[in-house]
């Protein structure tokens, strides 16, 4: 019978799994597979494991619960072992690696920062601050103006928007970087002008949260900074 694997901890971890349920419907019962000084938290793998909210949420909640009580290496969603022996095999084989990483992550948590720039707001700002864009916009209003002018306007606005996004992203990263031990920055996307995870020691956790808040307040409407944390260190395992 295959087992769904959530996380790896040391055997010193309290592993209190009461009130926490696994993936599947009905929710799988969480249990611990032990090998040497390491433990893996697992449950029976449901036949219909899927990326539905039910299972994603269960996976994440197990990680949060474990992380609250001590260092844990969160697995990525969806990993299944053939049986308990296969889990024990991996724990034994990679005991040193896992143990070392757990030590390194002790007393540290991940913070994830995402920035969303409202397009209307930034385009409006470009129009307000750039006379050339204003002029091109005036000429192309209501279907007027030549195709070239329309294209020139779009190119100018796109460049300005990109420039503002990049500058904003760098500002956010520069503001938070000094408080973190490590960072993992996701490539730029259309959705977020910045998306980064930081590894933060517990004693700086509060400071980091405050710095993020202050940073967020510095910007006006149209810039949304979403800071999530402390989280299990998904990005630093």
């Amino acid at each position, binding site marked *: 019978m*295959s087992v769904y694997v959530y*996380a*790896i901890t040391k055997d010193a971890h309290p592993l209190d799994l009461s009130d926490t349920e696994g993936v599947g419907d009905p929710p799988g019962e969480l249990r611990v597979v032990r090998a040497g000084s390491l433990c893996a938290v697992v449950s029976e793998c449901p036949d219909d494991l899927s*990326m*539905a*909210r*039910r299972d*994603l*949420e269960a996976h*994440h*909640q197990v990680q*949060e*619960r474990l*992380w*609250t009580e001590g260092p844990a290496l*969160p697995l*990525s969603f969806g*990993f*299944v*072992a*053939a049986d308990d022996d296969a889990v024990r*095999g*991996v724990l034994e084989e990679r005991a040193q690696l896992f143990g070392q990483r757990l030590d390194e992550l002790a007393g540290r948590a991940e913070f994830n920062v*995402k920035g*969303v720039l*409202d397009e209307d*707001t930034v*385009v*409006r700002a470009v129009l307000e601050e750039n006379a050339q864009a204003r002029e091109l*916009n*005036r000429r*192309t209003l209501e279907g007027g103006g030549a195709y070239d002018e*329309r294209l020139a306007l*779009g190119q100018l*606005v*796109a460049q300005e*928007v990109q420039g503002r996004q990049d500058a904003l992203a760098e500002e956010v990263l520069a503001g938070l970087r000094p408080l973190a031990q490590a960072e993992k920055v996701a*490539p*730029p*996307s*259309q*959705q977020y002008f910045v998306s980064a*995870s930081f590894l933060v020691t*517990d004693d700086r*956790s509060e400071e980091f*949260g405050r710095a993020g*808040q202050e940073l967020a*307040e510095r910007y*006006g409407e149209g810039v*949304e*900074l*979403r*800071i*999530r*944390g*402390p*989280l*299990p260190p*998904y990005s630093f*395992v």
Partner: protein
Amino acid sequence: MTVVPQGNGGGVPAAAGGGGSGNLYDVLELVLDRGLVIDAFVRVSLVGIELVKIDARVVVASVDTYLRFAEAANRLDLESGKKAPAQLTDIVEGSVESGAHGKSKGALSGAVEAITDSFKGGGDEDKEEDEDKDEDAERRPAREKRRERGERRSERRSTRDREE
């Protein structure tokens, strides 16, 4: 400006069990894309993962993009133009600004809904085909919505405003 602080800043994760769906969206790519990967285990097939992953496209330099931005600039100018009565302008601006939060959530939550729906419905129907037939924009996967962002922007906004 909207800040979504989580937890209480005291080094304690957000209350256990408090993981509402709103919380899940922001950590979705961490749960799916990050985390420990153990090659000795099998990863279950993650059907639909590409719908949930962040759209990694940068603002590309293309004629389409330029025209879209030109259109956005034109439209904004009209919305806040002098022709509109002052009150109307205020309403439009207010809704644009307060819309930022809902809008940013839209894409990902849409994706999760779509995936959840597709699994709950036990559907093994061909999704690609289905997308073309399905004219109900609210139930379409985010990927599809995003592709249409340019053309459908104003339409989608009015939908959203009705909901709010």
